[in-house]
């Protein structure tokens, strides 16, 4: 009899806890792996008005761009505030072989400037203040010489290199510093020279769609290009587009041109309307 009682007690002691734990969770599954890392983003777009940002595209994506800079706003109703022109336009096409590399071509009708460029994202860091570091560079040809300027024809090639430092402050304010070097900033000169420039840009993201941006390019003074370039505007972004509406004192847009300075100061009577539209394409 004692053995029977012992058996009953032992059964209860062993099995009852099993019942309780079984009701809690009888499964062996546990989460396997960590959540996918979220890519670091500072500026949403690959460019500000004229300066590059450290942002690239996803590997395999294309980027098509069309941008305009109009005549002087100060032309008033007679020139329809510059929208009658003359207009400088730019077309661009870029491709991302990988998530961290972007190569492309830009063509502007300002001296028929054609540029081949590349941008590589070298480093990024998340955390409270996300940071991205990238480098960019390119070579440009001014293929249309002004009438009666043979020196231009002999000195039409330009090159540039940039380091792009971007940081996101407070989740909404993106800031950038872009130290730059330009080879042959003044293609009107008979000999090639070197020049330095520093681009500063910022963008505040008001919502998932709307942001305000500004940029300033401090340039070495060149003959006829004695002023820094300033541009300010609003950006609208959608699932695949960026629309930038802006004012600027520079009608030229391509990197080798903007980094070399501009002919007029940032003043109310020297500003122009402009826009940049980019579209991400996948095939």
């Amino acid at each position, binding site marked *: 009899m004692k053995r029977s*009682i012992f058996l009953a007690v032992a*059964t209860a002691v062993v099995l*009852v806890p099993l019942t309780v734990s079984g009701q809690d969770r009888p499964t062996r599954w546990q989460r396997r792996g960590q959540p996918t890392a979220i890519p670091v983003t500072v500026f949403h777009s690959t460019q500000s008005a004229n300066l590059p940002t450290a942002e690239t595209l996803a590997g395999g994506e294309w980027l098509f761009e069309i941008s305009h800079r109009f005549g002087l706003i100060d032309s008033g109703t007679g020139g329809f505030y510059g929208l009658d022109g003359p207009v400088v336009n730019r077309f661009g096409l870029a491709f991302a072989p990988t998530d961290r590399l972007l190569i492309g071509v830009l063509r502007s009708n300002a001296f028929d400037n054609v540029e081949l460029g590349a941008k590589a994202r070298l480093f990024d860091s998340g955390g409270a203040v996300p940071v991205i570091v990238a480098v960019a560079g390119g070579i440009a040809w001014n293929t249309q010489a002004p009438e009666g300027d043979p020196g231009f024809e002999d000195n039409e090639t330009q090159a540039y290199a940039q380091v792009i430092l971007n940081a996101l402050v407070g989740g909404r304010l993106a800031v950038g510093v872009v130290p730059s070097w330009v080879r042959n900033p003044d293609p009107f000169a008979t000999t090639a020279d070197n020049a330095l420039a520093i681009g500063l840009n910022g963008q505040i993201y008001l919502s998932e769609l709307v942001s305000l941006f500004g940029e300033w390019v401090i340039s070495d003074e060149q003959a006829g290009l004695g002023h820094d370039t300033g541009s300010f505007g609003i950006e609208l972004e959608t699932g695949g587009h960026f629309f930038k509406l802006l004012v600027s004192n520079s009608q030229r847009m391509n990197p080798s041109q903007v980094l070399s300075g501009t002919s007029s100061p940032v003043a109310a009577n020297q500003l122009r309307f402009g826009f940049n539209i980019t579209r991400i394409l996948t095939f």
Partner: protein
Amino acid sequence: MRPTNRGGRAIVLAALTGVFAAPPLAAQEYQVDLNAERTVRFISRASIEEFDGVTDKIDGYVLIDGPALSADVGGDDTEIYLEVDLASIDTGIGLRNRHMRDNYLEVQRYPYASYRASIVRVTAGPGGAFRVDSRGAMTIHGVTRPVEIPCDVTPEARGYRARCSFQVLLTDYQIEIPSIMFLKLSNEIRLELDFAVAAVGGGGPQ
């Protein structure tokens, strides 16, 4: 004086304890097979644009009250838990992925969508296939809502393959979509799941 049989009562007690204390007879756990093909697809059909988002980052388990799926399986002894890693969703455009992550799903705060349920009904179909109806709670964006999900299930060597299709409304999960001209994400999202589960411990349908 009537003789007592304390030893016999103890044995009966032990037997009853064993009956009630034992886990469900031959309960079998299946886990999502990470070595098999898995697809979670959401489909947005907005007026301006249609697009899909795809990921293979689904994991979880299914616990059934029997060694294998049958029409007898179902009830509170069954359990389904599935979760999807939302940051891994690829819509085909990197910028749109970021919009999905940051603006809509807020994956830094809510990295997973999950479904916890029990099997309501198993209906046998032709060729060893089953229709499995489950009822439970879906959690997306930190909001939990009741959901019923039907799945077509077919046996495989190590377990089963499940194909499920259902619809959710983003507004049910407090995911706000900008109501201006740039709206490209539909409030109605169709979700399609295709994944395999493998028996834990070598059990299974065959």
